[in-house]
């Protein structure tokens, strides 16, 4: 299998002044290394503050790592010039958690879909519209959605639109940062199916960042467990989740709400 992304010792530090007034350093990523193979899905799980979202931003070239490398397409995207980075960005597309915030509320769906195509500037208007409609179909939206505004769509429809927009640039990698977390249960299932379809039909490589281990187990091949900015455990999904070795992983697995759970003892203090 072809290696698509290789992260080596990624470090991202933020400088902050804490309540006492002293300068303190926040290590959002503290030496993260992993590999992503083409056509597979990598799940990145962890609690809030474990660095998952920072990782997503660094992968999508929206944040610059303090040190370390991300190898993609033969280049270290952490160290290339802005001009080159602009060429790389369309190839790694990011989908955010809240579709309401990532879609321009004043544009109709068709405009949202053609915008990235216009920016690329290579094809005619007719072709653009055709592409837009085929994108809608691919994510399971009906053609009449094209004229609607994001505010008129449901959460699931918006997220599908966000995915369609991401696909417009024919990326090699989709990074999904908690993309399902804000959706209803049954809608999550629908979008999960869209992602599975993309994996099988297009061979899309995905990095799926979430704290929902159940969904991670369902969609991913490989998994990386993060804690405190570091990778705590990684490996094939079934192995890591069935027999977690680290404390953090065990806690995450135990915390997954399960339909067949026995009555809880009051864990109160």
């Amino acid at each position: 299998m072809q290696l698509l992304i290789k992260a080596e010792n990624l470090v991202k530090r933020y400088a902050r002044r804490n309540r006492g007034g002293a300068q303190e350093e926040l290590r959002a990523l503290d030496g993260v290394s992993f590999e992503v193979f083409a056509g597979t899905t990598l799940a990145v799980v962890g609690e809030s503050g474990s660095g998952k979202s920072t990782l997503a931003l660094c992968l999508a070239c929206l944040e610059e790592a303090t040190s370390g490398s991300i190898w993609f397409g033969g280049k270290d995207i952490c160290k290339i010039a802005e001009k080159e980075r602009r060429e790389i960005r369309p190839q790694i597309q990011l989908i955010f958690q809240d579709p309401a915030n990532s879609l321009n509320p004043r544009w109709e769906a068709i405009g949202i879909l053609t915008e990235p195509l216009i920016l690329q500037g290579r094809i005619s208007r007719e072709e653009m519209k055709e592409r837009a409609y085929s994108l809608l179909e691919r994510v399971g939206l009906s053609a009449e959605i094209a004229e609607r505004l994001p505010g008129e769509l449901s959460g699931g429809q918006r997220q599908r639109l966000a995915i369609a927009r991401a696909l417009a640039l024919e990326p090699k990698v989709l990074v999904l940062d908690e993309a399902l977390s804000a959706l209803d249960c049954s809608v999550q299932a629908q979008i999960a199916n869209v992602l599975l379809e993309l994996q099988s039909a297009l061979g899309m490589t995905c990095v799926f960042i979430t704290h929902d281990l159940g969904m991670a187990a369902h969609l991913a091949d490989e998994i990386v467990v993060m804690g405190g900015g570091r990778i705590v455990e990684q490996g094939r999904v079934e192995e890591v989740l069935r027999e977690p070795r680290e404390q953090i992983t065990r806690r995450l697995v135990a915390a997954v709400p399960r339909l067949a759970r026995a009555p809880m003892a009051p864990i109160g203090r």
Partner: protein
Amino acid sequence: MASVLEVRDLHVLYRGREGEQRAALAGVSFDLEAGEILGVLGESGSGKSTLATALVRLLPANGRITRGVVLFEEKDLLQAAPEELRGIRGGRISLIFQEPSLALHPTMRAGEQVYRVLAAHGTEGKGVLREKTRQIFAMVFPEEAERIARSYPHELSGGQRQRVLIAQAVACGPSVILADEPTASLDPTTQMEMLGVFRTLREKLRVAMIFITHNPALLAGFADRVLVLYGGRVVELGPAAEVLKEPRHPYTKALFQCVPAGLERNGNGRKARLPAIAGEASVSSLPWKGCAFEPRCAERMEVCRDREPTLLGVNERHTVSCFKYEK
């Protein structure tokens, strides 16, 4: 067991910007028993959030309660005078909203926000109220209670903010807590912690709770009974163990199948298409004939389009609203 809250045939309408009317709740009835945790399972469009705000009459300006009775402590809340209602809100029935980061006042310290709830309902002096605030914080925050009371919401973590909301909710010793997706924005471990806190509070304070969520797995091992809401109607109601293990209504069955079980069944079904419910939950505008779930139902019949089903008993504690169970 005695019922602490009785809801009968509650109807709520919303008026859209062009004057069109949308039914958010279309005849919801249920009882809440003293000290029980009732899980209300509903997705967007089911009317779950409307239920919480309607019970204490905090609907937005374009919402109206058109029919129904809400009996609480021998009074119909829907007929109560505004001053009475104000006293009940936060005092006898508390609301915990979604999104703790939004439900707290951004520039007021946590301790003061709880203090004000007490002050709105008690007539005691400042000193007494401050002491009470301190006690509540100590109960909800076993460690660092003082530091948290002095902090502002933006200095607290998601879980801590949620606990402040809980502190506000239990401050005046209510008999009912209405929680609308209280754990939605928290990560799994904090979520589990919160559920534990709720259960402890229920034991300690004997308070009944309506826990609204869209995630059925959260209710497992937590709720006593489960009420399933779809299209503003109750489609299933019964003991949690029964409903979660053997759902009767087609919607409930389909919903449970949407939860990926990759962690449980030996990896079978991993990467497989989930049997998601086709279509979208439609916004029902009046008038609506027939069953609300019929367009998406895998088991639909002719009669489902013509008439609306009523709640029928599967056994003495479990009711379903579906023609399949009509004898």
